[in-house]
């Protein structure tokens, strides 16, 4: 088990020893997002494989100062997934945006099937839709407005609120961790 910094170092040097750690640490999260975008397990498997090949190929180009490793990999996964959907629809002579045809309700069973953390449940549906379209599917705010039939200003304010809610949730997790820290310490000391 390597530390995060060591994983980054090995990835940048394309050291094959890091491959398994990379997959085991990040494949489930990336696969979840990919599945959310492509909504087909068969296609998601191909996209996950392509994603990891790209991660490996472009590893030396990753710059930690520009963002976290996960975000960098997520961008690759997202772009790969979106490209896969587009090319699949091109083959079927359809429009390039599958979600536009798919009714919004069809997404929900998938999410339930995946089994989401309460971080998602805590986020109101109207915010979640905006974030999903932008963050996972690469929509612009204008495209989101058109897609959901709401004004651009509303899209922008929902983006803002959604992110602040997520941030709140993240920091509250940190706070609870800090509250538990003394108890954990006590436990460790008593064990030691």
């Amino acid at each position, binding site marked *: 088990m*390597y*530390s995060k910094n*060591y994983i980054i*170092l*090995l990835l940048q*040097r*394309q*050291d*094959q*020893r890091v*491959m*398994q750690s990379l*997959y085991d640490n990040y*494949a*489930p*999260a990336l*696969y*979840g*997002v990919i*599945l959310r975008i492509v909504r087909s*397990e068969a296609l*998601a*498997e191909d996209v*996950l*494989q392509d994603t*990891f*090949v790209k991660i*490996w*190929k472009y590893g030396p180009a990753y710059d930690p100062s520009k*963002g*976290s490793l*996960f*975000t960098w990999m*997520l961008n690759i996964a997202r772009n790969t997934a979106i490209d896969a959907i587009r090319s699949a629809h091109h083959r079927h002579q359809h429009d390039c945006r599958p979600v536009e045809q798919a009714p919004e309700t069809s997404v929900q069973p998938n999410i339930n099937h*995946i089994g*989401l*953390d309460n*971080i*998602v449940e805590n*986020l109101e549906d109207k915010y979640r839709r905006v*974030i999903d379209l*932008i*963050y*996972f599917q690469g929509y*612009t*705010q204008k495209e989101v407005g058109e897609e959901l039939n709401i004004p651009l200003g509303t899209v*922008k304010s929902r*983006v*803002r609120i*959604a*992110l*602040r*809610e*997520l*941030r*709140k*949730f*993240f*920091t509250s*997790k940190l706070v609870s961790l800090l509250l538990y820290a003394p108890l954990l310490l006590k436990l460790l000391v008593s064990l030691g």
Partner: protein
Amino acid sequence: MDKQKFIESGLIEQYVLGIVSPEERRDIERLLTRHPDLRQMVEELSQGLESYAKAHTTLPPSHLRQKVLEAMKAVDVPRSAPTSPPPPPAPVVQRSFWSRWGTAIAAVMVLGLSMVCMLMYSKQSEAQQQIAVLSSQVEALQRDYQTLQRVDKRLQTQFAILKDVSTRHVQLQGSDLAPSAKAVVYWNENHQDAYLNVVDMPEAPHGHQYQVWADVNGKHLDMGLLEAQADPETGVALFKLPYIEHSRGFVITLEKSGGSPHPTVEKLFVKGNL
């Protein structure tokens, strides 16, 4: 852009989502370098978004793992030079018993051996010094022995002459200058040997020496000067005299240092005849 306006604009959230124009991105990143609190806010928003993405975590089918890893390995990685593997994180490395104690044992052994070497070296130089002392002592003893051998030979010879029945003892009596003075000449015609034994003579004054003469048909022939000591090695007061044939008697006179070709009769100290 003003910091407060920036926060209210919602641009920071759009930046975190990656949906800003390149110009906006440049402006924001410039602002972030000046305001650590904004950077902190960006950090927290990103973490929140990451948590949201991770909340969708779904285990991929298990057969996929091997397939993906093989696909990664199949990537032809262009390498200008073989990259050396980075050093593994140091604290994770567990040092074995032997690597930990082996070093200590080896160090102690090296220390011990070097001490033994130093001890042996000092012992050796000590022994060399002793050898030098002993060999110089041996040399001194050899010299002494050789001297004693020489002395012994001389004494044997002198003793042989003295005990020889054919040796004649010539008493030299003191003159008016020194009535108590006395000396003996041992004269041996068979071996043609002659010795002088100074029994009692006043000490020669400074710048003067006694000289021995042989009386041959009324003529005084030089028999040599008397040194302060007859034989410095033995300390025995027997002077070797040259054997001069037809000697009838012997006299000793006091002469200036270095001797004279003719005896100074006025300074005759002892005299005796065969």
